[in-house]
């Protein structure tokens, strides 16, 4: 608590020598706010939404609900009318898509506002510029009502404490039941919103299952190959059978994600491994050497695309055009690949391959990030906070409700047309509905692909198998200042080393030196910070 007071006095403007020293200490990467408080936070109750029955029910562990069709008669999410009547709400958030037409010329956005009962004023920033703009706006002092807080924002605990609302009284334990759709968000998503002994934001839920090793099922069938190798040797043989360099056909693209997949075969840590409070990074393990050695074999055998080591960002297209047959990507890529490539390739079919054990038996699968980022609310009077939370509750209305249908597919007849009961976006809808509500908050994801419902059972089956052998990252939801600041560039350098080894440009024998570099330049500090955090959340 003492530390707390010091920081507050600093923020009020006292520039005492002691306070200055305390802050200077923060620069060294030690979280400034007492960690022990975090273990006392009562997490929001989880009340799964039961209004719609999924064709393929999900599980508490993270398998998503699968639906073949949208309910013909969607449940009315807010029978009492628009939930968030009141002043406009300004939200600063980011976008990956092209920027949508502004609300004044966007019928979808206007309909969304009507359904909320207020005006959702989004200050949209391109994702590439978000890390630049956030600190600038914070320095300017004029914050929007809510802001998307990304993992790259440094000094997060102190920042949240100084400027943003602790939402515990609204969301902790049973309090969240006042916002039924927020209560539907699974518990693991909330982990990353806890700071300074409070809940400081709303999650943007993503699938626990993480990434998928996609394979071109059509090419496997064409050559009568078995897409379920039993061990690494079979996997290598499969890759060799898929490669046909004379026809520009190769097995593998991205060398880095291939290493991830090999680590899944070997049961290596999902970036971090925790064992009795001791943290180990994946690059330090014995498994990574084995994975690198295996990847080198694949590279030497010419199973990678010839530009795999020199060209970035082309892997998806290689996969779509069939130049490579295996591609490791986010699970939402499943639908995207069909949308992007199926119309060009007759018989285009993909499925997910689970890593086999390296020497046989079951392998493992790495979990993904369960929340993309979180939405923090500027400090405000209680009633205003409640209004904003009601608006967010509406933006988290799940699959099967009318609110979800409006949010994702817009207005019927304008933004989408119905095929049976399934909404299909029109060209207008594709442009208008890119309003980035998914980067405000969202319902838990669901498996649903109206263009090709036959895909859903495959996705569901893959998730079930993957969840059985899931390896989580113990550092998820924990905060390490060093990881935020030095982590990303250190990771880039390590990736370069990894690629160099796989490529054969860097000898495997230099790996020890690489690991020493990692430890010296921030790795050991990250470890210490995570271990402290881990310990504090136990007590």
């Amino acid at each position: 608590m003492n530390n707390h007071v010091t920081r507050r006095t600093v923020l009020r403007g006292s520039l005492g020598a002691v306070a200055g020293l305390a802050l200077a200490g923060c620069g060294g990467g030690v979280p400034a706010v007492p960690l022990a408080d975090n273990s006392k936070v009562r997490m929001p109750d989880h009340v799964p939404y039961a209004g719609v029955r999924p064709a393929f029910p999900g599980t508490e562990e993270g398998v998503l609900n699968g639906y073949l069709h949208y309910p013909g008669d969607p449940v009315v999410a807010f029978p009492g009318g628009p939930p968030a009547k009141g002043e406009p709400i300004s939200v600063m958030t980011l976008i990956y898509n092209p920027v949508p037409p502004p609300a004044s010329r966007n019928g979808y956005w206007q309909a969304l506002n009507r359904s909320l009962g207020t005006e959702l004023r989004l200050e949209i920033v391109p994702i590439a510029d978000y890390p630049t703009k956030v600190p600038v706006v914070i320095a300017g002092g004029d914050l929007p009502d809510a802001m998307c807080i990304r993992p790259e924002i440094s000094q997060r605990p102190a920042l949240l404490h100084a400027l943003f609302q602790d939402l515990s009284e609204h969301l902790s334990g049973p309090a969240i039941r006042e916002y039924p759709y927020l209560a539907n968000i699974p518990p693991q998503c909330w982990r990353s919103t806890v700071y300074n002994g409070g809940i400081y934001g709303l999650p943007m839920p993503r699938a626990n299952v993480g990434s998928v090793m996609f394979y071109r099922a059509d090419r496997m069938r064409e050559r009568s190959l078995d897409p379920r190798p039993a061990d690494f040797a079979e996997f290598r043989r499969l890759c060799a059978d898929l490669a046909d360099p004379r026809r520009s056909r190769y097995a593998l693209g991205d060398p880095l994600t291939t290493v991830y997949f090999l680590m899944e075969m070997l049961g290596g840590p999902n970036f971090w491994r925790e064992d009795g409070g001791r943290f180990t990074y994946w690059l330090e393990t014995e498994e990574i050497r084995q994975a690198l050695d295996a990847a080198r074999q694949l590279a030497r055998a010419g199973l990678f695309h010839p530009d795999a080591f020199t060209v970035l960002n082309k892997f998806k297209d290689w996969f779509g055009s069939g130049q490579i047959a295996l591609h490791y990507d986010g699970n939402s890529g499943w639908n995207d690949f069909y949308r992007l490539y199926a119309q060009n390739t007759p018989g285009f079919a993909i499925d997910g391959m689970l890593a086999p054990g390296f020497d046989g038996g079951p392998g493992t699968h790495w979990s993904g990030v369960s929340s993309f980022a979180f939405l923090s609310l500027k400090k405000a009077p209680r009633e205003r906070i409640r209004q904003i939370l009601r608006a967010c509750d509406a933006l988290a209305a799940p699959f099967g409700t009318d609110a979800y249908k409006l949010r994702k597919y817009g207005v019927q007849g304008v933004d989408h047309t119905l095929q049976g009961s399934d909404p299909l976006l029109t060209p207008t809808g594709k442009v208008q509905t890119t309003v980035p509500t998914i980067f405000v908050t969202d319902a838990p994801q669901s498996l649903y692909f109206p263009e090709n419902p036959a895909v859903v059972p495959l996705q569901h089956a893959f998730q079930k198998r993957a969840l059985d052998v899931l390896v989580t990252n113990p550092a998820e939801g924990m905060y390490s200042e060093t990881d935020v600041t030095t982590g990303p560039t250190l990771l880039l350098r390590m990736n370069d080393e990894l690629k160099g080894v796989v490529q054969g440009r860097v000898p495997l024998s230099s790996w020890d030196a690489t690991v020493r570099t990692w430890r010296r330049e921030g790795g050991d500090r990250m470890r210490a910070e995570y271990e402290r955090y881990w310990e504090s959340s136990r007590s």
Partner: protein
Amino acid sequence: MFVTSPECTGSPVPPLPSASHHAIREREPAHRPEGHAMSLLTRQKPRRRSGASAVDPPRGGARRDRALFWFTVPGLAVVLLFHYVPLLGHVIAFQDYQPFIGIWHSPWVGFANFSVLFNGEEKLVIALVNTLQLLLIQVVFVFPAPILLALALNSLLGERLKRVVQNVLYLPHFLSWVVVVAIFQQMLSDGGLVNVFLRAQELGTFNIIGNPELFKALLTSQVIWKDTGWGTILFLAALSRVDTNLYEAAAADGAGRWRQTWHVTLPALRGLVILLLILRLGDALSVGFEQIILQQQSGVGIQAGEVLDTYVYNNGLVAGQWGESAAIGLVKGIVGVALVLGANRVAHLFGEEGIYRR
């Protein structure tokens, strides 16, 4: 005295009676004795001038001086307000600055933020060596390219052809580095157009992209491809002012084409070339950050193309290190000041004017 027909570098010419109202209205430069121009061919390097005030008539000078000063006021105000006021923010170079705490309350840390530049690491030395190598390559190969191209264009037959060529060559300037890199990869990578063609003809392949030895050559050719055409614009503007009488006069003196270029065209560009070179030196420590960052992961290894900017980015200037970023800006600025002032001094030694007079 930079970008001018050579006659102006001669000794002060007294105002000619013939430069009358009429001449001014015709927007026609005063004509000068023909012998003056011809003498250029035999003259040595022009002497440094004693300052323009020599030509000022003695009376009313001070008042006119002030009149000229007032012209600078609007532009100066913009620079002071939008450049120098925010520059005061560089005090955070000595702070552990955090945006949410603010400049007034962030703690002072002395020179700690400068350590990334003075930690004497071997990798930093490599980055510096790479930076200087690239700077040298750029000064030797990239800098003269637009001059040569401008000369070639200037002597091209036919105004229309010249314009078309120019119109084509300046286009790449408008492509972002992301696109330029993509185009080069598309053409030159192992699976790129050139190598696919060569492979089909069984001529063997060139390993260009992803070859550490060729990385600097690749960077250089990209810069040349992107900016040479654009760079000619300034030189063409300078060449457009060359007094064509001088060519005739030189020809009359029996000077061949090369000597005409040497004695008439090049002197007209000399001032501009020196000016631009000095300004480039002010930016010496920046050699294509975005371009290199985009290609560092292209299989050549980080070391191959690590320059000061990327070193700082890869080793310290990371999320939230505002103080360090300001510190590095300060150091680079100071180095720039030293180089510009030094280069200007050197220019003076050679009798050139540089950016300002002594």
